């Protein structure tokens, strides 16, 4: 793997793009016109080579007003997406405002889908504010800081999540701040040493 890291940018050149990558890129190209975003959770490890599928892509966004949401909603409908939780845009906006996630997929499909929610916790805000930028040949994606990603995956704690954490830890071993990972683990209350590998 050839990775170059420069400030907040992680350059990943010559990656063969999958249909999942295209799905994410297409959606983000619409979303970023309306608000800041950051990709969190499983897709981050998939982007950097983890060989597994996923049914949803988790995205955090800053709060937006209803008018902006309606424009975003209308563009998605126009571009043949649909919302899985509800059809009424006011109801969908209310779900976001109530701290719930809304799910969006290409019309008449359910997998894969985008799980979109507002930033809520302090760590969500750090994810958004201190995001990294994965720079691919033709596009870029805002992703959660890797140290936070690893700590959060350990916090979630399923086998799949621990595997994702280990994968990122191995791939970026030379670039990660152990101090930051442990700091985020402490905030999340993740016990050290009970997940099968050393940080």
């Amino acid at each position, binding site marked *: 793997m*050839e990775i170059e890291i420069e400030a907040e940018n992680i350059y990943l050149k010559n*990656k063969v793009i*999958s249909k999942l990558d295209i799905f994410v890129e297409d959606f983000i190209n619409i979303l970023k016109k309306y608000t800041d975003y950051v990709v969190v959770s499983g897709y981050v490890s998939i982007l950097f*080579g983890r*060989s597994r599928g996923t049914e949803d892509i988790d995205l955090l966004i800053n709060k937006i007003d209803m008018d902006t949401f309606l424009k975003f909603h209308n563009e998605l409908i126009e571009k043949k997406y649909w919302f*899985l939780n509800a059809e009424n845009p006011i109801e969908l906006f209310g779900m976001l405002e109530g701290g719930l996630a809304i799910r969006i997929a290409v019309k008449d499909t359910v997998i*894969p889908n985008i799980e979109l929610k507002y930033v809520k916790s302090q760590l969500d805000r750090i994810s958004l504010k201190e995001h990294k930028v994965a720079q691919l040949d033709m596009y870029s994606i805002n992703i959660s800081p890797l140290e936070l990603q690893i700590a959060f995956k350990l916090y979630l704690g399923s086998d799949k999540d621990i595997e994702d954490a280990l994968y990122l830890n*191995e791939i970026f071993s030379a670039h990660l701040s152990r101090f930051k990972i442990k700091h985020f683990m402490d905030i999340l209350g993740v016990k050290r040493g009970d997940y099968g590998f050393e940080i």
Partner: protein
Amino acid sequence: MDSKFDREQNLKQRLDFIRFYARWVKTVPNEIWSKQQAEFIDSLFDNAKKFSLTREKYLKTIRR
């Protein structure tokens, strides 16, 4: 059978594989690992289209 022991063994084996796979990914050019990954993910992607899953059934499934 001690199921806890099995789970731990299973996770250990899976983590060993992740280490092995990550080591391989780090040693080959991006074109190589990503081509294999894209073929695998694309096949899952295509397969997902064959599910006749409605929005309602999907949401019910993930809420369980």
